[in-house]
């Protein structure tokens, strides 16, 4: 009877390499590998995207400088940025920011117009009821203007990122 091999140094069936180590063709030691918790072997695209844009060495340095409980979020945001940059090599995430800022500006206009309507209706209603107070203070804020745009049109000609 042949005894089953019990090699402890080579990767066994129970410890497949993480996506990073598989991509980099190196041995993966899950307890030591900085990438293993965040790049499971089932999702090889995640690491290949991040590697293509940021590089393994840069990601490793970044993760080492971050507290362990924040590393998963960091990896996910890096993966998001990498994917966005691969889809849009010119604007990356900045393209999406620009779109959302336009939506915010549009909604602000809509809010201003709707607030004006509310004031009009409130005034008319008060006049019709001769002093009946309109109780619309249930949490509403007619002067809501909570938008703050950090910059305008980052993709425009006057964009200045320096």
């Amino acid at each position, binding site marked *: 009877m042949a005894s089953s091999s019990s090699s402890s140094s080579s990767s066994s069936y129970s410890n497949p390499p993480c996506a990073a180590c598989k991509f980099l063709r190196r041995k993966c030691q899950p307890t030591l590998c900085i990438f293993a918790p965040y790049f499971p072997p089932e999702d090889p695209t995640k690491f290949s995207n991040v590697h*293509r*844009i*940021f*590089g393994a*060495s*840069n990601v490793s340095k*970044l993760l080492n*400088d*971050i507290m362990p409980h*924040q590393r998963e*979020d*960091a990896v996910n*945001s*890096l993966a*998001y*940025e990498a994917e966005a*940059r691969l889809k849009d*090599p*010119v*604007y*990356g*995430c*900045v*393209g*999406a*920011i620009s779109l*959302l*800022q336009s*939506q*915010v500006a549009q*909604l*602000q206009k*809509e*809010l201003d117009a*709707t*607030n004006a*309507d*509310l004031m009009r*209706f*409130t005034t*008319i*209603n008060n006049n*019709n*009821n001769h002093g009946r107070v*309109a109780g*619309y203070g249930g*949490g*509403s*804020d*007619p002067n*809501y203007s*909570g*938008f703050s745009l*950090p910059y305008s049109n*980052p*993709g425009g000609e006057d*964009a*200045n*990122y*320096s």
Partner: protein
Amino acid sequence: MNSSRCAACKHLRRRCPSDCIFSPYFPSNNPQRFAFVHKIYGASNVGKILQDLPVNLRSKAADTLCYEASRRIEDPVYGVVRELTNLDEEIQKAHCQLARIRAQIAVIQARDEVDNVNNPNFFPPQND
């Protein structure tokens, strides 16, 4: 020492060739700009991204790479993705606010309709 080297070649301590991929977008008077992208992306990756683009789009690409790199340095965990999240929250808040104000307007309009059809001769039902 060649004083006309771009910021990238100065940072990388190499000669700046006449066809340097970085020099149009990383002038020597702004060393921090290249330092940021080098720290986050690496010179090689930035060079590849720029090389793969038509010349007329490289300036915008360099600008957005610098922007994202600077955001990542300021916020190593979320980088520029935090702005996306914040904007998304603002949009959700605005939608809720709009819905609330429209509901208030609908209430006022409904009250106006009730007032308009109010019958001054209305008598409540009497119990026998």
